[in-house]
């Protein structure tokens, strides 16, 4: 009984000393936990299985965020609801768009392959985290903003950010070294959704898109024939369909072109944590393109 009381007391005290910080994306949550550690409590509203491009916070999400002085978004237009969301905040609350401090790339894809209407050809591409080097900068941004809000712990944030930055630097090197296993002419990343522009530029891939890999909608025989012709012409070695893409169409694509069916990649969501997401994607890409 006595023991339970003291444990309860310690936990209460620990929770009281923590700064409540909001996060609008699981990747931002991962960044915040790495930099903030035990000094902050992160309140996240987007769950790992929710679609980042269509998500809209409901009244319960908004209530959860009311307790946070600072709320971190990925930015670059990824949270398309952000303007209205900011209007709902109270005085003293603020949103930090991490992506604002990261150099931008433009979406370069035919309109049918973009993730949503707001990320059309030529628009700012929001998927900046697929270049691991950008995450190295992101931890510094998070540390700077947390330090401004909570100067007493600024030094702790800086040193945690330094460690996280070193881990990302190592991860960036690992991606480069894994990618070098793929012959140069085969570094073509075929996906259903233009989410890997930053990845392709950073690691020397050409991005390509074909129909029939996406989970939404049926593909007609005519479209399928067109895709098959395209894959053969470009001598594509592997394609990376979305989870739940039409298995019949995929089987036909792979049989008629000899393409490997790579495992689905995490374009917008996260696989346990950021590092494991990147390792999963890169391992699957290398596996399929070196087979």
């Amino acid at each position: 009984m006595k023991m339970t009381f003291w444990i309860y007391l310690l936990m209460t005290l620990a929770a009281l000393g923590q700064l409540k910080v909001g996060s609008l994306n699981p990747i931002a949550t991962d960044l915040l936990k790495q930099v903030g550690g035990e000094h902050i409590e992160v309140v996240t509203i987007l769950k790992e299985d929710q679609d980042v491009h269509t998500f809209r916070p409901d009244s319960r999400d908004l209530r959860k965020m009311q307790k946070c002085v600072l709320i971190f978004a990925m930015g670059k237009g990824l949270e398309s609801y952000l303007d209205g969301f900011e209007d709902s905040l109270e005085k003293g609350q603020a949103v930090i768009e991490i992506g604002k401090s990261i150099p931008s790339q433009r979406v370069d894809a035919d309109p049918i392959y973009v993730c949503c209407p707001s990320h059309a050809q030529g628009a700012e591409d929001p998927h900046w985290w697929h270049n691991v080097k950008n995450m190295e900068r992101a931890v510094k941004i998070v540390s700077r903003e947390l330090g401004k809000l909570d100067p007493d712990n600024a030094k702790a944030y800086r040193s945690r950010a330094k460690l996280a930055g070193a881990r990302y630097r190592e991860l960036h090197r690992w991606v480069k070294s894994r990618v070098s296993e793929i012959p140069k002419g085969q570094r073509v990343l075929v996906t259903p959704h233009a989410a890997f522009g930053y990845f392709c530029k950073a690691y020397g891939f050409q991005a390509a898109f074909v129909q029939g890999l996406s989970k939404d909608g049926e593909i007609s025989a005519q479209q399928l024939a067109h895709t098959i012709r395209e894959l053969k012409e470009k001598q594509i070695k592997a394609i990376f369909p979305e989870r739940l893409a039409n298995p019949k169409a995929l089987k036909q694509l792979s049989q008629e072109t000899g393409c490997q069916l790579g495992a689905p990649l995490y374009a917008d969501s996260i696989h346990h944590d950021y590092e494991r997401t990147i390792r999963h994607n890169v391992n699957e890409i290398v596996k399929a393109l070196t087979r």
Partner: protein
Amino acid sequence: MKGSPLCAALLLSFIFALAIVPLLSLTHREPQSFAASEASGNETLIPVLSGFVTVRSAHPYQSIEISRGGKVLWQVSEPGLEAESELELLAQDLLQFRVIWPDETPETAVFVEIEPDGKEAFSQTYWAVGNLGEEIRLDLK
């Protein structure tokens, strides 16, 4: 020995009261980053961009300094292999970058990276013996 529930509750309330004071000051502090700098006048005289600087040396350095027109912006005088800091940058900037290594240090490489918010990073590796003095020109427009 069983503690009295009343004593426990009183103790808890007391500690709660002690803890709430710093917490309130923390949550009610106006975040500084949102007081946008609305300095007017000669645009080239005011810092326009926040950024970060990182320096990594192959051999331990003795000191690092970054200055602009003789004014020191960042200084590290503790020996080490790696240092980083926030740095305010001008849209068109000319920085003096200086590193000093202890005597007897062989020719060594030093990497400097400047990351202006929202812009591509400037990064460069220099080689030097004993000390290095370089100018870094940035065009961030």
